[in-house]
């Protein structure tokens, strides 16, 4: 269960950040995956920029090249292992999406297979990333402190900027002034977004510019030029694998599978939200009509405005309209929603009427912890905090101290209770120690500020895009079409025990003999 939660959390946060930090129009653009050659030229260009900025000496370049050789092995290994995994993932996600579309739960085998493959994918990515980060650190030591500092604002997302002639006419000056005023006005929002970004980086460490460009096989040529050395065979081989693929897994096929998986992931994530929102036919009709009405101009405006850095006014207006269609419960679901492959418990399997066994994760943890010796307890708390840090972000030293004190106090309180008393109090105690989801809190803050400054928020990020709307229309048709049910033949299915044969649970029917 915990493993499954971790999958959901990690993927969801990754997708969430992607969605939050890029407007839908850009996402649509990104969805159209680029060719390898484009990727190669971008990498080479970025590597060139980086090397120029670093002003590497020949010796440094040589040292970096030897590290790049190790990185090349990782890149090859990553490509091959991922390529082997992709067909399986594609098949599993496809089946999962088909079941998700019906909104009638998942077959255990389909759900388990998807979870298993998703986990393997994450483990592979995390392992390769971890090792590349270690190599990156090694390469960082080769650089001087001034060179390392110069990397600070070398954004990975930054695209090559074309030099423009600075316009100095009155109109452009007015525009610049307006932009400055707007930027000053929305400063708190930008700060909140930055905090969210930082938190996300903490939870999901990424390879920095050194690992991504300097040590990447596509950047090796530029590095070789500076080092004035022969190109190591492994670097050429790695560049070749990344450019053309292997004989078993040509790059075109791998790219296509990746794109299909990406598409399926987005579809599944949308279904999870649609299934969780339980929109009725009328709501679906209203939302799609609002979208259709605003769609054409919206995307144009959004695209233009995103370039100019001004708020997406039309999108924000559309969002306000859609907001009116949703009810309070649906707003709450949206506020807590994280894009995910495997839907979390509250969306997939909410607590049911009359259901007894619905103890939360913290209740179970407390029940275990209250029976432990003080030494075991210390280990248990450390493990719990480690897990929390992985999913919810690192705590500062003071925060950690406070959290440990709270956990200890609560466990002490729980261990002095009788079993009966604990059973009655465990829900309250669990609520007390539940770690707040800082990503969600921060996202809520960003959304509130976005609303304040008339900018699009959560609804735009999750719902206002063509794919989501198409899926919503499909759900609308499903609801309108009703469902045909063929009744099970009760005589052939499993039969409940009844008193016809046995009266007492451990004996035979005495009523019959009595009647006889």
């Amino acid at each position, binding site marked *: 269960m915990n493993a499954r939660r971790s999958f959901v959390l990690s993927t969801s946060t990754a997708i969430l950040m992607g969605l939050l930090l890029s407007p839908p129009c850009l996402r649509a653009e990104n969805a159209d995956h680029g060719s390898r050659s484009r990727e190669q030229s971008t990498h080479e260009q970025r590597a060139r920029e980086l090397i120029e900025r670093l002003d590497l000496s020949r010796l440094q370049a040589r040292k970096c090249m030897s590290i790049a050789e190790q990185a090349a092995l990782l890149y090859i290994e990553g490509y091959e292992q991922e390529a082997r995994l992709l067909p399986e993932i594609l098949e599993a996600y496809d089946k999962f999406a088909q079941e998700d579309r019906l909104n009638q*739960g998942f077959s255990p085998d389909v759900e388990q297979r998807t979870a298993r493959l998703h986990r393997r994918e994450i483990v592979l990515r995390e392992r390769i990333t971890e090792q590349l980060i270690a190599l990156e650190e090694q390469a960082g030591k080769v650089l001087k402190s001034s060179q390392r500092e110069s990397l600070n604002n070398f954004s990975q997302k930054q695209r090559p900027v074309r030099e423009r002639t600075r316009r100095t006419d009155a109109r452009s000056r007015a525009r610049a002034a307006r932009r400055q005023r707007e930027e000053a006005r929305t400063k708190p929002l930008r700060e909140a977004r930055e905090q969210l970004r930082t938190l996300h980086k903490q939870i999901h460490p990424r390879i920095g510019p050194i690992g991504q460009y300097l040590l990447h096989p596509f950047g090796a040529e530029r590095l070789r030029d500076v080092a004035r050395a022969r190109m190591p065979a492994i670097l050429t081989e790695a560049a070749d694998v990344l450019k053309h693929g292997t004989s078993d897994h040509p790059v075109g096929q791998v790219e296509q599978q990746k794109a299909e998986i990406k598409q399926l992931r987005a579809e599944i994530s949308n279904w999870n939200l649609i299934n969780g929102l339980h929109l009725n036919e009328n709501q679906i009709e209203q939302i799609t009509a609002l979208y259709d009405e605003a769609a054409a101009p919206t995307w144009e405006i959004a695209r233009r405005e995103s370039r100019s850095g001004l708020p997406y006014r039309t999108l924000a207006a559309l969002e306000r309209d859609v907001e009116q269609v949703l009810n309070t419960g649906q707003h709450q679901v949206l506020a807590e929603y994280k894009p995910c492959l495997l839907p979390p418990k509250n969306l997939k399997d909410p607590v049911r*009427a009359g259901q007894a066994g619905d103890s939360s994760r913290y209740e179970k943890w407390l029940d275990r912890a209250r029976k432990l010796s003080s030494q075991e307890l210390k280990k248990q708390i450390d493990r719990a905090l480690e897990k929390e840090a992985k999913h919810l972000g690192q705590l500062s030293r003071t925060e950690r101290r406070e959290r440990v004190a709270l956990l200890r106090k609560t466990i002490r309180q729980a261990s002095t209770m009788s079993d009966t008393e604990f059973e009655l109090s465990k829900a309250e105690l669990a609520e007390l120690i539940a770690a707040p989801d800082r990503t969600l809190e921060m996202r809520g803050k960003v959304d509130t500020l976005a609303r304040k400054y008339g900018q699009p928020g959560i609804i735009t990020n999750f719902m206002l895009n063509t794919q989501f709307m198409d899926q919503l229309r499909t759900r609308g048709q499903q*609801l309108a079409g009703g469902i045909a049910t063929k009744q099970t033949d009760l005589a052939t299915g499993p039969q409940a025990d009844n008193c016809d044969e046995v009266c007492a649970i451990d004996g035979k029917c005495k009523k019959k003999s009595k009647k006889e």
Partner: protein
Amino acid sequence: MIPPRLDRREFLGTLGQYAGAACLGCGLGMFAESAFGESHRFTREVDFYTQLPGKKIQCFVCPLHCVLEDGETCFCRTRTNVGGQLFTRAYNNPCVLRVDPIEKLPLNHFRPGTKTLTLGTGGCNVRCLYCQNWQQSQKMPDEIKTFKLSPREAITAARKKKVDTIAFGYTEPVAFLEYAKDIAILAKKARLKVVVATAAFVEPEPLFELSEYVDAFVVTLKGFNEEFYHRVLGIELAPVLTAIKTIKEQTNAWLELTNLIVPTYNDDPDEIRDMVTWVHDHLGDDVPMHFARFVPTYRLANLPRTPVQTLETARAIGYEAGLRYVYTSNIAPHEGTNTVCAACGTTVIERLGFKVLSNGLKRGVCPKCHKKLPGLWC
């Protein structure tokens, strides 16, 4: 003090004496423990049974009327014939003990937004193939983890947890009727409300006796055909309908009905129509009816969840039949969980699952049309 020196013979002799004494002590302890355990387990005699020749007995709590030899236990797994007397194993022995929202029972017209201390014990006289609490209900109280809680302690616990309602549910209260009744009696004295969530497969007399102390019943009407009741639940429908009518006609308790719709088993619209028509004709249009979503479990784990459209159709059928308050359960957020004034159509209580998000009722009166909604609101 220096211990006296013993020779080898004396040492072995003393050791033997100590060992003998230890064995005897141990044996006596085990005997005492088992004797105490038995007597502790059977502290409360069942109220409704008759003795038959040869230390046999016949139970009359539920319509099964089990006939038991000495040492045998009823179909419900909780009542055992001990030497010609019928005792309950469930007394003081709950396995579920929770403070929950009252909406989880589910009750929507009874003190909304309040909490209840809910108790349940092992055992059940129904054998639902889709029981969601089968780990408790399909076991004897002695086979599962339980908590020692006397009726008096249950009242103290409710007071301590600051809840003013005690509910019996999760497993079938008919299986622990004696325990439930004794708690209910004390609860009334302590001015606490009492709620029973049951499948109502019970004889009228025990039900009537319990209902004296009960403020609300939630009855699960699991389907509306005898074959379904017989093959999927292992019981009969007719006694359940009699019990529901008894509650409505002969007691002052508030009544809500719930029906869990199992896909392809009891989701036939015609059958649902028959059921709601019966409810309307025999119980009236003010009895709230909940249609709950099925989630695969226990012996029907291979089925899909109930499609939301099915629940919405069932709700629409309920309204068509003339019922005024029809809900959907186990899906959230859904408009079917909200309470809408039947007179003016205003949403008066908004819910997200079992959580009350807003309650516009003032002492059960609609803020818009000022009509009183049926139910027990404070």
